[in-house]
């Protein structure tokens, strides 16, 4: 009995098990938590982090770092709204936003891979430049959406579940596949494990890194579009600080900052832990300043538990 329990807790899916247990406890103790409305609200609240975490996972797994995600999300949202407004065509607006996001990502990738500039510095720089562009484009003010069908992107539902949640779920599936079952995904992990050895084994390291950043830009643009649609405007100040939340979610989910280790299921759990923490704190009406303490402690506790687990695993 205890042996089985131990096996389950300490197995590959241990983090998931801890998470499921925590989820059960929260469901039973926090009033209103397990209502359909709340769960849907919770899912919608993690859409931005969840979507961006997909590619951040690749970025971290290949030993890189991207601080510019928040700015790209805001910038792409602005582009989507402004282009839609000025051309009168929503598809054109979306296309422009996706292109803009990809372009910024591409610039990140090329500078990092080809000019060999530290990823932290490069994306810190583009984070500022892109935020500046977003602010300049709109003179620092939010831009409203003219055509109300734009909102329906976020408001529409399929089988009772909002479209953004479906999109997030679809991206989870796609990127889990890419990570585990494609050469690109395996190469990403190899680069994180040992970039030089990977290069000598014929992996096109530069090209992979450029692709990862470009994808990151594209995915941020998707998040930016959905966000603009949800908040019915393009906001140059949107998503500040997103980078730290996304990176925390990934690290919580077991992605190693030293590269070479990542799993989609882990990242999903990481994203959900952060989302649930926020949700529950608000449901329990915890005072704003205590929320800081709780948020910090949950972060620590989650990694600590996971550490104890893997260390017990080694001792076994």
């Amino acid at each position, binding site marked *: 009995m205890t042996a089985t329990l131990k096996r389950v807790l300490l197995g590959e899916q241990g983090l998931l098990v801890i998470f499921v247990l925590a989820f059960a406890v929260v469901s039973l103790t926090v009033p209103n938590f397990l209502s359909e409305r709340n769960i849907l609200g919770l899912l919608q609240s993690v859409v931005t982090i969840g979507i961006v975490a997909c590619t951040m996972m690749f970025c971290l797994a290949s030993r890189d770092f991207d601080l510019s995600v928040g700015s790209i999300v805001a910038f792409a949202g602005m582009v989507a709204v402004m282009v839609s407004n000025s051309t009168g065509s929503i598809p054109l607006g979306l296309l422009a936003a996706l292109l803009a996001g990809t372009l910024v990502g591409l610039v990140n990738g090329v500078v990092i891979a080809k000019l060999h500039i530290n990823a932290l510095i490069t994306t810190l720089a583009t984070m500022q430049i892109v935020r500046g562009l977003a602010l300049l484009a709109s003179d620092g003010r939010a831009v409203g959406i003219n055509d109300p069908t734009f909102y329906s992107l976020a408001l529409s539902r399929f089988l009772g579940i909002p479209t953004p949640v479906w999109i997030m779920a679809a991206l989870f599936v796609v990127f889990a596949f890419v990570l585990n*079952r494609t050469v690109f995904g395996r190469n990403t992990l*190899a680069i994180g494990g*040992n970039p030089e050895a990977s290069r000598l*084994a014929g992996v096109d390291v530069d090209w992979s890194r450029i692709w990862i950043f470009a994808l990151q830009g594209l995915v941020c643009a998707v998040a930016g579009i959905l966000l603009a649609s949800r908040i019915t405007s393009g906001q140059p100040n949107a998503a500040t600080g997103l980078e730290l939340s996304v990176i925390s979610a990934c690290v919580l989910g077991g992605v190693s900052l030293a590269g070479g280790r990542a799993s989609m299921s882990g990242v999903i759990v990481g994203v959900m832990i952060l989302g649930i923490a926020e949700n529950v704190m608000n449901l329990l009406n915890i005072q704003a300043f205590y929320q800081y303490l709780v948020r910090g402690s949950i972060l620590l506790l989650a990694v600590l538990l996971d550490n104890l687990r893997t260390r017990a695993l080694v001792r076994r």
Partner: protein
Amino acid sequence: MAFLEFSDISKTYPGVKALSSVSFGVRKGSVHGLMGENGAGKSTLIRLLSGDQRADEGEIRIDGNTQAYASTRDAFDAGVVVVHQELQLVPELSVAENLRLGRFPARGGVVGFRALFEEVGRVLKEIGIDVDPRARVSSLSIGERQMIEIAKAVMIDARVLALDEPTSSLSSRESEVLFRLIDRLRQAGKVIIYVSHRLDEIFRLCDGCTVLRDGRLAAHHETMEVVTRDRLVSEMVGREIADIWGWRPRESGAVRLSVQGLHGPRVPEPASFEARAGEILGFFGLVGAGRSELMRLVYGADQPNGGSVALDGAPLALGSPRRSIRAGLVLCPEDRKADGIVQGRSVGENVVIASRRHYSPLGVINPRREASVADRFIEALRIRTPSRRQDIVNLSGGNQQKVILARWLSEPGINVLIVDEPTRGIDVGAKAEIYDILYRLAEQGVAIVVVSSELPEVMGISDRILVMCERRIAAEFKRGEFTEGVLLAAALPDRQTPQTAAQRA
């Protein structure tokens, strides 16, 4: 009476029993060989001795006292110094700092650099290592780094010294420096544990030896008097190996690899050579002769400053390993830790990383095929691992080397195979198998270039040998022409003023 005693030592890693009830003792003032196949448990035993890890069971006694140390520091204090199989240097620090890392000469926490450089300079000179104590380790070649690592151990007045494959990247000349050192230490009454896969070294150095097999004690010899080479081999591998080189004559065909006037940052003079289909071309030289640098230029690992490489007459785009691989030219690198293994990934993944593209349509991998390829090579090269899913960093050094070899052997359609120190750290039995694989590839028409610092090895398997000296190709010998004497003579610089690290920097 044994000065150093291992008694009933056992150690288990997840899925692997690395050592089980190993007991033996070593006398004061003697050099004791530790032998065994890859993964037999040699390095594990050394790690326990160094205080880096603790045994599950059993104890280590020095001079009759049971050692209960819990860290490498405690081991130092008990007079135990270990040179690990993998280099343990800090590339960003100077040679001198590396030699006294953890024990800087200091007063009130302030390092006495003058004293440090003086002391280290003196010691290096005394033991015959020609390196500037102020040079950064990152500017040294692998061989030089290995010498530094050994000097590190010698600098301390230890009672027990353990060397885990210290000569695996040294040529015979540097090895000789080390051997003289060891002789001196033996005379000074130290206990020395010496791990090596090179049998001639064991006979040259050791007063006794112990053989491990699958983590168990297979044989223990107090003296080497009655021990023969064949006996040792069969104790290690469990079977007889008549001739480990097993060279057999072959027809060589057309020129496959043609290198013309190639030069780069660390190969200043243009180098030219050719290798033919079915030929095994050896490259010999002393540490730092420039062989590895030249091969990296050929492969495209480094960007050359000029020259050309042609494969079967077609020019090869330089500076891209990826394109070289696609054109059928591959290099198995010298430094397996930095350039070979992909840490954190499984054994299987490390095998298929380059060749999986052949059966991954549209970039989607084929896990079943990958598993079968990996398993095939794990079996063929007898890689000791609980499964292909094991993280490669958990493998023993020799087994890691085999995985890297498997990576290139699993690549179909190679025309030219360059292997840089291919059997570094590999046991006798596996060596014979690897040579056999090389011959078979050659028979299929592959041109093979073998860089090796082990004189018997180059002589044993090459059809032709090029000797490099001071980063130039200095001489060429055909099979039948070469002897130890002529090769060494060609490898030694004319002027007896070897360049110092300072001049290089």
